[in-house]
């Protein structure tokens, strides 16, 4: 278990004060916390329950219901490949295969050193630009394995792995 960068008690009380401790804002509270830790560690969820007095089973229910929340550690670099219909028929799976090989992680998994998370998503709503790959929030359109390799090289990812 990696050491948490910010002490949960401190992070939680700070974020709760942003919402005046209003538990009805649970989703925003969890979103903000996830921004700090990149996922929702167990200790953090326990701390939210402790400080809001909302039972932990409720918070766990919310955190597992929405796909936007992650309960497992995520990599520093998050690479998302759209596998929605439009991207799929244009061959996004080839780029996904390449990424999986280059990074050494299976789709929807994180590398052991917590450097990379490779994930797929149903549709990002930019079908005209497909296949789409998103790297840490930056969108790359018309992606092919060749172009992907060049992007990885530019980012300094590929030397290490090939």
């Amino acid at each position, binding site marked *: 278990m990696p050491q948490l960068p910010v002490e949960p008690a401190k992070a939680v009380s700070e974020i709760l004060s942003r919402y005046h401790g209003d538990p009805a804002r649970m989703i925003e509270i969890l979103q903000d916390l996830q921004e700090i830790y990149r996922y929702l560690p167990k200790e953090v969820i326990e701390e939210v329950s402790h400080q809001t007095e909302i039972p*932990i*089973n409720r*918070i766990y229910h919310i955190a*597992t219901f929405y796909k936007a929340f992650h309960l497992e550690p995520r990599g520093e670099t998050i690479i998302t490949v759209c596998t929605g219909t439009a991207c799929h028929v244009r061959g996004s799976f080839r780029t996904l295969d390449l990424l999986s090989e280059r990074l050494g992680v299976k789709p929807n998994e994180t590398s052991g050193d917590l450097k990379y998370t490779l994930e797929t998503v149903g549709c990002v709503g930019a079908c005209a630009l497909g296949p789409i790959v998103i790297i840490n929030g930056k969108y790359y359109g018309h992606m092919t394995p060749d172009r992907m390799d060049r992007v990885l090289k530019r980012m300094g990812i590929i030397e290490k792995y090939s």
Partner: protein
Amino acid sequence: MVKITIDGKKISAKEGETVLKAAQRAGIFIPTLCNNDAVKPYSACRMCLVEVAKNGRTKLVTSCDYPVEEGIEVNTNTERIQRDRKVILELLIARTGETPELKKLAEKVGVKEVRFKVRNFDDCILCGLCVRVCDEVVGAHAIGFRGRGMEREVVPPFDVENEQCLACGACAEICPVNIIDIFEHDGTRELPKWHKKSRLVACRVCGKYFATEEEIEMIRAKTGLPDEILYVCPDCREHNFTI
């Protein structure tokens, strides 16, 4: 008093009660799975569908959480309801396989064959009764839902043993399909589904195991009763046996 009609029968219902309650008091059968008087309605299983006619319009509602209203006409067994009910139950059976409880209900509502592929990937029907009894009655909040859609399931938070669970067994008692196992052996009580193992406490008078350590501690915290009462089982207490 509110006047309503159920299946042609005139009934006076209590203000604020549900259609299901009114029907049950009048001896009219409506199938249910997720309803239990111990907890609030949840309308998860949809077995209790009825037709409610109001101002010349008819709609399908779940009777377990539909409050009575003056003048409504309720039908509990029209062709449409029978058809919908069967589909709902068939879908549940496709999910869980034909368990004894669902089989019994299937006979009652007239399901002759299950038209869907029986996948039997989970035996829980997600009625939420165990979660609600733990939240609302026991107050332990030890289990809850996780995920959604096909992946939805009931687990203790993080799917690990927790301290909130008292191993009281209320969840096992209330589960309508009887899938929460409880085992007692060598002075322990185990609920494998929640990864819970508790030590049992023996009555200081008769020596019989009668509660878990967690239950005793919960009652102590709530009532502040002394050990002489806490560690005597209800039977012995009734007969005024003391330590």
